[in-house]
């Protein structure tokens, strides 16, 4: 699939040196040279679904996103297709987390990128409040209405106006498991929380640690919590807690933490113990689950669909060696927690609008879907575009959940609470992983940090 797109475009490697605050990383950015006579003939053949994009020869656009590595490379192929169709030149600007602050400095400097991909609904709201974001034009909105369910359209709205195009989605209600370890243990894919505990016990009895937790990154822990909470306390409470309308000292939080402690707190259930898990970063937590043959460091790892990018680094094959089951139902229904990146226009222009329209189209999403490691909330992306059955299942589950999904809670919270390493919810849940007996103390700390963060109104 990649070879076909490579033959269409002629490549020119443009190296840009992106100096990240964390240090100087040399990223090789690859943008395609628009070969005009080649473009014309191909764009007419490729445009099948009636997506019409204006001719934008001579325009240059900048797109900022936090994606790195393979993800960035794949996205650039999508941008290349846009260049091919319109003749515009698109540059990818690597940003760093938190992107809203990155954009803040860009905007203060008077040079915002034309389009930015914002990972949190809270960030879109901030961008609108600060008057950075520009509303979508008619074409983009039409494209969006055609391809997206109401729920996905709504989370891109602020005060009734459409600002964001959710280009990329994440299904964060999945548990990946080492098929071999499950087979050795005679364990079955669980559908409910008690079944999960039974499967874990079977795995443990067979001599493999059941869970791998990437506790060095706090967000994996907040995602664990959100799944348990959404399923156990229900969507209404979930929304209230996300907006801090109920306190973290609420009994429902206590119940969720207690449930969580059944996994986190059980001796030998977490690979490396709590201390080891707290020093395991997310990528390592995935790879250690799928390396080591019969004797992996752990049998299951919880995280979203994007974990398969890390599985790709091991010898395990997604679908045969690495399998996946939806996060089991703790309460009455299984949770669907999702995340996503929305394209938001920061500099209104014909080109930026066209790019937003393109990103809302199934054509753009299909290109990246074929490359793997990507999930689109676009319901018109054919399921067959995903490279393997596992991804097809995940995509189907996401589309099927319709408007019942809930967006990642920590992504909705203020940055200081839900998105800063070593602070707020991340830190509090890390402390909880270390000491799972202290439910009340954890709640008190969460409430204290939440009150400070929500109170400051940032």
């Amino acid at each position, binding site marked *: 699939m990649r070879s076909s797109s490579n033959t269409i475009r002629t490549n020119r490697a443009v190296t840009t040196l992106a100096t990240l605050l964390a240090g100087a990383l040399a990223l090789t950015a690859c943008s395609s040279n628009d070969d005009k006579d080649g473009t014309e003939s191909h764009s007419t053949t490729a445009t099948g679904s009636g997506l019409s994009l204006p001719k934008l020869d001579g325009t240059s656009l900048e797109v900022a996103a936090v994606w790195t590595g393979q993800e960035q490379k794949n996205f650039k192929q999508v941008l290349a297709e846009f260049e091919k169709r319109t003749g515009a030149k698109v540059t990818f600007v690597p940003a760093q987390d938190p992107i809203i602050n990155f954009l803040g400095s860009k905007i203060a400097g008077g040079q915002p990128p034309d389009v930015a991909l914002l990972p949190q609904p809270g960030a879109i709201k901030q961008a609108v409040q600060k008057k950075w974001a520009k509303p979508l034009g008619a074409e983009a909105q039409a494209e969006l209405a055609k391809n997206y369910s109401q729920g996905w359209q709504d989370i891109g709205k602020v005060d009734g106006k459409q600002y964001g195009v959710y280009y990329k989605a994440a299904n964060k209600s999945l548990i990946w498991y080492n098929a071999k370890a499950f087979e*050795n243990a005679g364990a079955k894919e669980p559908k409910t929380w008690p079944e999960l505990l039974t499967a874990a016990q079977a795995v443990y009895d067979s*001599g493999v640690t059941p869970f791998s937790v990437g506790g060095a990154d706090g967000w994996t822990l907040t995602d664990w919590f959100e799944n348990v909470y959404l399923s156990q306390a229900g969507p209404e409470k979930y929304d209230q807690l996300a907006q801090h309308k109920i306190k973290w000292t609420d009994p429902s939080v206590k119940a969720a933490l207690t449930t969580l402690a059944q996994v986190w707190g059980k001796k030998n259930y977490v690979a490396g113990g709590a201390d*080891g898990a*707290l020093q395991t*970063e997310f990528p390592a937590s995935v790879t250690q689950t799928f390396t080591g043959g019969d004797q992996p460091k752990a049998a299951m790892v919880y995280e979203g669909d994007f974990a398969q990018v890390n599985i790709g680094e091991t010898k395990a094959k997604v679908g045969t060696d690495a399998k996946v089951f939806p996060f089991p139902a703790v309460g009455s229904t299984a949770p669907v927690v999702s995340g996503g990146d929305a394209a938001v226009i920061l500099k209104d222009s014909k080109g930026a609008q066209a790019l937003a329209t393109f990103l809302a189209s199934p054509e753009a999403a299909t290109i990246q879907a074929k490359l793997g490691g990507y999930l689109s909330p676009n319901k018109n992306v054919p399921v067959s575009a995903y490279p393997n059955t596992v991804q097809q299942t995940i995509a189907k589950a996401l589309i099927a959940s319709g408007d019942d999904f809930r967006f990642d809670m920590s992504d909705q919270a203020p940055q200081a609470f839900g*998105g800063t390493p070593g*602070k707020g919810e991340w830190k509090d849940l890390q402390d909880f992983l270390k000491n799972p007996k202290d439910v009340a103390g954890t709640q008190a700390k969460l409430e204290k940090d939440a009150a400070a963060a929500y109170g400051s109104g940032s």
Partner: protein
Amino acid sequence: MTSAAAAGVPPAPAAPKRRKSVTGTRRTVAALFLLPALVLLGALVVYPIGYSIIRSFYNASGDGFAGVDNYKALFTDDGIRTALKNNIIWVVFAPTVSTALGLIFAVLTERVSWGTAFKLVVFMPMAISMLAAGIIFRLVYDQDPDKGVANAVWVGVHDTFAQSSAFPKAHPGRESPLVARDGGFITKAPVHTGEVVALPLVGVAPDQMPDGAQKAAAAKPDPAGITGTTWQDFTRGKGVGRLGAPDPTELGYSGMKIEAVLDGKVVATTKAASDGTFTLPAKADGALLRLPAGNFKEPYNGVEWLGPSLVTPAIIGSYVWMWAGFAMVLIAAGLAGIPRELLEAARVDGANEWQVFRRVTVPLLAPVLAVVAVTLMINVLKVFDLVFIIAPGSSQDDANVLALELYRKGFAEDQPGIASAIAVFLLLLVIPVMAFNIRRLRREVRR
């Protein structure tokens, strides 16, 4: 910011404002020539400092005057207080250890013929950027002994003295006759002569079994003693199988220690054979059988270098690795300037080498040592990259230093007011050290 401030002070004495200079240059001409430098310094040093100070009195969004609230936060916020505490640890230990090591290296290498080669090696880390050194040490301190060198060495040394056991994760399965006690497992009911006892456990994978473990066999009853089997009651791929009885492919716990405990006293001990069977003499009649904790000792996992308590010393270690070479080279240069006669004279007078070092070399080197230590101190006050990279997210809070907190407040938490206050505070901390350095420099010039 802090180093920029260091550069900001010299121009003050340099501007001649009183009268015509010796060469007869007019003041306007002098000012003209100074202008480019002044503009640059003003725009790049004075203005940022000034603006930081002003910004530190405003709130997060920058439109409301906050008074000294941001400074109050400096001393009430837990994060900043840990940062402050860690900064003090850094300033006290990092420069002194680096300087001491540098001094030792310099004095010792002076006397060996391959000293230059040694110095080259010690100085080498200086050629590496802080970022790269951070990444290297993140790996060195990795908890997993298979990845982290520090723990590989530590575990290697530890394991030569203390063997780990064969069944670290074994535990009773469902409906087990065993209960956990004191880290081991003990039967619920006493055993009697002529009885066949089953001591099943689960949780040991076939690959982890000791070499030579064979398929578990049911023990034959012996009227003169107690017999039994201890084995892994778990068939791969099938689960427990027949509960409490060995299935065809289940392995015996070869080498498992078994104690018979009667009224709290061990009356007999034995070891399981390779098929898991064991026999105990008749005197164990009525005793409880215990699998002592020694069987289940967890493999030693090394030191938690990057855990909350050791993370700061560990990062200081990586800093010393980088900067001891720098200290050594400067001190070696100073050492070369010491008059040999003084050392010779001391030796002739009968001083031993330690006395020469302590009473002659070190006092003569004192000015150099002071320069090195002070330079490192300034360097350490603004340490950021090593901490940012080496400390994993979970212990970043424990490893926090002021510069990192500044970054986090300013760029991750959107609190530029507090971040500016930290910057100003750091500047205040650097000023006395700087003043000391400048005064020393002036004295040097006058001499």
